[in-house]
């Protein structure tokens, strides 16, 4: 059975490392090269110690890139768009994990990212990377742009409600609680352990860039508003989005169950988590570490038309590398769960 030849550009970061971990154990994949300019020639386990004994692979430089079947781009924002022609020359299919090609509208891009997009004409060539929303388009896509982690959790949590026009368009409030791995492996003043440990840090009360993706995917042609805030807490992996939406008509919890079951009943990576006993009655991000699950729960407020939707993921997995691999599986017609079977640890 011929294997798909893949390479990763920018494989020394947390996202690239997580993707490498998954690809190393994917039965249909042969890893060709993994690039890092700062670690060229070094063993990958130097920066990804969990890969000790798993591989003797070394980093190459991007200048040494050879032709391959698929190129995963795990570069800082604003890199992919500047060298996209070079990357296109390397592989017929590209999965970009940066934000460069997520937004379809160049004006929106400029508004949220503060500078003009370098190759706006290419935006329409990239399929937005949430399989649960764009599976059919992915099946014959050449270019996929993986979604942001906060956006993924928020969008998946609210998609069935917006799709069925059940909530007021301008009253949605989303509060994400996020971990330190979201910031990547670059050290900064605020990531210094004595300063970062134990914080409940309001790092993006407004204007979080991922809002743009949420608006794009939930508007369904309407003009909607999403009031998003993010707070950093003392976890490394994991992300919990608590979404407050306001129902247009009065619904029972039984109706809500049905709406989510209809939307996600057959999805391999979405679990509806809403139980009235046990320790973990609503989605719990720490249980999802290393898995590709998005757990979704909800609670109807008895005293108002507010519905609280709770959505949890591992920001490095369903929020990045896991979702990119899910898209890869769809692109090549493999079972979507291939290489993504890990069901998580408990206790953790």
């Amino acid at each position: 059975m011929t294997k798909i030849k893949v390479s990763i550009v920018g494989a020394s970061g947390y996202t690239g490392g997580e993707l490498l971990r998954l690809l190393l154990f994917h039965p249909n994949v042969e890893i060709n090269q993994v690039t890092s300019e700062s670690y060229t020639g070094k063993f990958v386990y130097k920066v990804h110690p969990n890969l000790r004994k798993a591989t003797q692979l070394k980093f190459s430089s991007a200048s040494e890139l050879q032709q391959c079947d698929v190129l995963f781009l795990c570069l800082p924002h604003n890199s992919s768009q500047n060298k996209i022609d070079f990357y296109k020359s390397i592989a017929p299919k590209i999965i970009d994990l940066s934000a460069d090609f997520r937004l379809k509208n160049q004006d929106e891009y400029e508004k949220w990212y503060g500078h003009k997009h370098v190759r706006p004409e290419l935006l329409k060539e990239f399929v937005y990377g949430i399989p649960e929303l764009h599976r059919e388009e992915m099946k014959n896509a050449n270019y996929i742009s993986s979604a942001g982690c906060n956006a993924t959790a928020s969008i998946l949590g609210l998609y069935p409600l917006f799709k069925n026009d059940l909530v007021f368009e301008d009253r949605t409030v989303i509060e994400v609680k996020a971990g330190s791995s979201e910031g990547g492996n670059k050290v900064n003043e605020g990531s210094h352990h004595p300063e970062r440990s134990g914080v409940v840090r309001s790092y993006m009360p407004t204007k979080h860039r991922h809002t743009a993706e949420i608006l794009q995917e939930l508007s369904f042609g309407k003009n909607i508003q999403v009031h998003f805030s993010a707070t950093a807490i003392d976890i490394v992996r994991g992300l919990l989005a608590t979404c407050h939406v306001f129902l247009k008509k009065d619904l029972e919890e039984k109706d809500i169950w049905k709406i989510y079951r209809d939307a996600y009943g057959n999805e391999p990576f979405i679990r509806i988590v809403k139980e009235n006993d046990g320790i973990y009655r609503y989605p719990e991000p720490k249980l999802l570490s290393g898995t590709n699950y998005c757990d979704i729960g909800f609670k109807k407020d008895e005293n108002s038309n507010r519905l609280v939707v709770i959505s949890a993921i591992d920001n490095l997995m369903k929020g990045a590398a896991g979702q990119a691999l899910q898209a890869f599986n769809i692109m090549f017609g493999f079972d979507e769960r291939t290489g993504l079977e890990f069901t998580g640890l408990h206790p953790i």
Partner: protein
Amino acid sequence: MNAECPVCGAQIQLAADAVQGELIECPDCGTELEVVSVNPPQVKEAPQEEEDWGQ
């Protein structure tokens, strides 16, 4: 014929295209090594300052 890592004694097979002065890493202990000669294969520890994190 293999070179021996001066730090941990691991047997190191030099790459076919290895050249004198090239920096390589010991597969066992990860120490950065410098190729002293290709034939016979010999390496020595590359100079490296010890990072002190003052923990």
